[in-house]
C-alpha cells in the first residue's frame, strides 16, 4: 500500500510502486488535470507540484511521491471558486485546445510560490519546459503576469 497525499488528502493505493504518478492521478484518483503528452519529460502537459516544485508526473514513480505533497490543478480551485491563476487564465481566455493548460498553470504556480513577482525573463525561462502547440503563449504569459499582479503587457528587457 502506498499512501499518497494529493491536494491535502491522503489516499491509500494498491498500485505497482513504479507506476508513474500521472497514471495514478488520472486513472486511480480520476483527476483529469495532469495530461499524458509525451511520457518523456519533454512537454510538461503532465506537470504537477511535488513539495511545491514543478515536476513531470509522467516520469515520477508513485513511490517517489509517497510521503510528499502532491498538488494538481484540481487543488487550486474549482469552476465555482477558481484559484488566482485559474481566474487569471479565465480572464485572459488563455486557452485554445487547452490540453497543455493544466500543466502550464501548475508550472506557473511553482514559480509564483517561489517568486511572487518574477521578471518577464524569469517567467519565460521558468515556463520553457512546457509546450503549447496552439500558440497560446502570449495569453499564458499575460495570465501569469495578471496573477502576479504585474502589468499584463510585459516587456522583455532590451538586449
Amino acid at each position, binding site marked *: 500500500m502506498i499512501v499518497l497525499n494529493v491536494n491535502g488528502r491522503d489516499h491509500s493505493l494498491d*498500485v*505497482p510502486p513504479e*507506476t*508513474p504518478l500521472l*497514471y495514478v492521478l*488520472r*486513472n486511480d484518483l*480520476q*483527476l*483529469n*488535470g495532469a*495530461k*499524458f*503528452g*509525451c*511520457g*518523456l519529460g*519533454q*512537454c510538461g*502537459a503532465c506537470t504537477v507540484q511535488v513539495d511545491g516544485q514543478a515536476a513531470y508526473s509522467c516520469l515520477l514513480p508513485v513511490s517517489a511521491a509517497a510521503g510528499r505533497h502532491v498538488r*494538481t*490543478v*484540481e487543488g*487550486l480551485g*474549482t*469552476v465555482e471558486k*477558481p484559484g488566482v491563476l*485559474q481566474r487569471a*487564465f*479565465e480572464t485572459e*481566455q488563455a*486557452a*485554445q*485546445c*487547452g*490540453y*497543455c*493548460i*493544466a500543466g502550464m*498553470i501548475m508550472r506557473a504556480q511553482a514559480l509564483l510560490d517561489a517568486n511572487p513577482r518574477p521578471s518577464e525573463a524569469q*517567467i*519565460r*525561462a521558468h*515556463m*520553457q*519546459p*512546457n*509546450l*503549447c*502547440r*496552439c*500558440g*497560446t*503563449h*502570449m*495569453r499564458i504569459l499575460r495570465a501569469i503576469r495578471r496573477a502576479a499582479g504585474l502589468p499584463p*503587457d510585459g*516587456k*522583455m528587457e532590451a*538586449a
Partner: protein
Amino acid sequence: MSETLSRRGVLGAGALVVAFSLGPRALAQEGGAAPKPVAPGLPGSLKTTPMLDAWIRVDADGITVFTGKAELGQGIKTALIQVAAEDLDVAPAAIRLVTADTGRTPNEGITAGSHSMQDSGAAILNAAANVRMLLAEAAAQKLGVAPDALATTGDGGFKAPDGRTVRYADLAAGLSLHVAARADAPHRPLGARRTLGHDLPRVDIPAKLTGGVAYVHDLRLPGMLHARVVRGPSVGTELKALDEAAALAMPGVVKLVRNGRFAAVVAEREWTAVQALQRLQQAGWRRPGPPLPAGDPLASLNGPSQDEVIQDVGAGAAAGVRTVQARYSRPWLMHGAIGPSCAVAHFQDGQLTVWTHTQGVFPLRGAIAQLVKLASDKVRCIHMEGAGCYGHNGADDVAGDAALAAMALPGRPIRLQWMREQEHGWEPLGCTQAAQIRASLDAAGHIASWRFEVWSHSHNGRPVTAGGLLAGLEVDPPFAPQIPRPIPMPEGGGDRNGVAIYAFPQARAVSHFIEKAPLRASALRSLGAHLNVFAIESFMDECAKAAGADPVAFRLAHLTDERAKAVIALCAEQFGWASRRLSDGRRGTGFAFARYKNLASYCAVALEVEVEHETGQVSVRRVVSAIDAGDVVNPDGLKNQIEGGIVQALSWSGLEAVTFDADHRTSFDWSAYPVARFRDVPGSVQVHVLNRPGTPFLGAGEAAQGPAGAALANAVADATGVRLRDLPLSPERVKAAIGI
C-alpha cells in the same frame, strides 16, 4: 510548355517530368465525403440539411442547438451558441449545444478549411431566425396580435404591446419545427444585437482550467480497459516478430489483439499497456519497402505530376523593363498536437460506439464500418475534444485502432491512446512544397506580368474508406489505400492561395500535383496557403525592392479590393509602419498580407525582428496584425485564433522541418522535432479586428499562417539584407546567409 522547362530549371536538371492536364479535376473536396446539397438556395449547411428541427429544438426543457461541426479548441461551440442566442434572442446560457455526433446531429462533413462559421454558423443563424419567426407567428395567434407587433423579451419569450407575454416553451408544444428553412427569415436588427459581436467567455475553458472532463482522453466508462497499438516507429516500418508470450505473461495484460499486421495490446491498467508495448517493441523494426529518398527534402517534387492552369488572365506578354524571379520552398511539417491521439470504443449488442476527436464523424463512421465489417447504422461516432487539431492528425487512425480492439473484446469499452513517438511517427504530415515566381516590372515600377508555379504533394488523405485508416492497411486482407487527389480550386490544396490576390495586367499560374510522396501527407492548417503566401508575399517584397518602392505602398498599388486595402492600412497604421525603425543590420521589419483562399478572411501581419549576428537567432520583438473576418461573432475568440495562428506559423517558419533517413522519419519526439517554446515566441502580439456586422461570416482559423511566415521572412531580409527563400529560417540558415 514553359512551365515544364522552367520547372526543370527550378527543381534540377534531369528530372523526369510527365506533365499532362487532367482537365476538370476529379471531384474531391478537402475531406472527401461531403453531403450533397438538396437546397442550394439556403445559407451554409442548410443547403444539405434544410429541416429546422435538425438544428434547433425547443421544448419544456429549453433550447437545444445541433451542429455537425466539432470543437477543436478554436472556440466554435461558443461562437455557435452566440449565433443561435442572437437570432433566438435568448441568453447564451439558455442554449444547450450538441456537437458532431452521427447519432444526433446534421452531417456537415469535416470541421476544416475555416468553414465552420460559413457552414454551420450561417445555418444556425438562419435557422434561429426561422425558428423565431415561426414562434412569433404562433405567439401572434395566441395573443391575437400581428406578429410584427411582438417584441422578444431577451429571455425566451415574446411581449405584446399591452404587456402580455408568452414563453417559447409554451409555444413550442404546439409547433412543429420539422419544416424546411426559408432563406428570407428576418434577422434581428444589427443595432439591437445582444450577443453576436460581443466577447463571450468560451464555454469550454472553465473545465479545462480546473480538471473537468474536457477531452476524450478523460472519458472513463465502467469496465473500461486500456490499450496501446503496436507498430514500428513510423510510417513504412514494421516491428519484427512480436514476442507475444512475453507480453501476455505480464500481469494485467488482457489480450493481444492481432489481425494481419495490426496489433494492439489491451490491459487492465494503462501503465501495464505501456510497459507491454515497450516489451513488444524490443523486437526491433525494419522497413519492408524501398528506401526513402533521404537527402534533399524537395527531391520528391520532381516526380511525375498532374498539371493544371489555375489562373490565366490578360493576353500576350506585357512589356517589362525588368524581370524578377525566385524560388521558395518549405519542408515537411508536423501537426504535433500536445496530446497524442486517443479514442474510446465500445462494442456491445452488435452496436459499435466510438468516442473520437476526428474532424469528421460521418466520414469516419463510414471508414470504421468498413474496417470492422458492420453496417454504417451499427456504428456511431461521437465527437469529444482532443488536443489541438490543426488538420488531419492521428485522430481518425486511433479511432480505427480502438474500434478493432473493441471488436475483439465485446462488452468492454477500450480506451486506446497513441504514444508520443507514435503520433510523431505516424500522423499524416503537411507536405513539402516549392513555388517559383517570375514577374516583369514596367518602367513605372508596376508588375506587368506574373508567372507562378507551385509543386505539391497531396493535402488530402482524410479517410473516406477503411483504406484511409492505418489499421485498414494492416489487417488481413488489407483494404486498398486511398488514392490522393488534388482539391479543386477555388479552395485548392497545394495551390490554395496560389492565385495572387493582386491585380496584374497579365498573370498565369500553374499547379503541379505530385501524387507519389515519400512520407504520409494530408491536411495541415492552411494547406498550400502557408507556402504560397510565403512565396507570393516574399516575392512582392523582392519586387518592391527592385522597384525602389515601400513594401506596403507597393502592395496597395497592386490591389483593387477595398477590404484588402482597409486591412493593410489598419495593420500598417497600428504597427507604425510609416515611422518604423530603419534596418540597422540587426533589427528589421516585415509586412505581409493575404485573403485566405481569396474568399475567406483578410489578414495582414507586420512584425519587427532582431537578428543575433553571432548565432543567426531571430527574435520577434513585436507583431501587429489586422483581420477582417466579416461579421465577427466573438472578437476575442477571433483574436485568440489569429494570435495562435501567428505564433504557430512563426514556429513552423522559423524552426520546424520533419527529417527522415532512408529507413524512416527521424523526427520522433520533441527533441528531434523542436517547436517554439516560451523563449522563442514574440515579445508581443496585437490583433486588430475590422468588424463588418451584417456581412457573411468569413472563415478565419487559418488566415494568419501564410502572412505570419512571409512577414517573418521579409523582416529577416530587411534586417540582414539577405533574402532567405527556403523554410525554415533556422538560426543555422540565417547565420550561414549573413556570414561571419
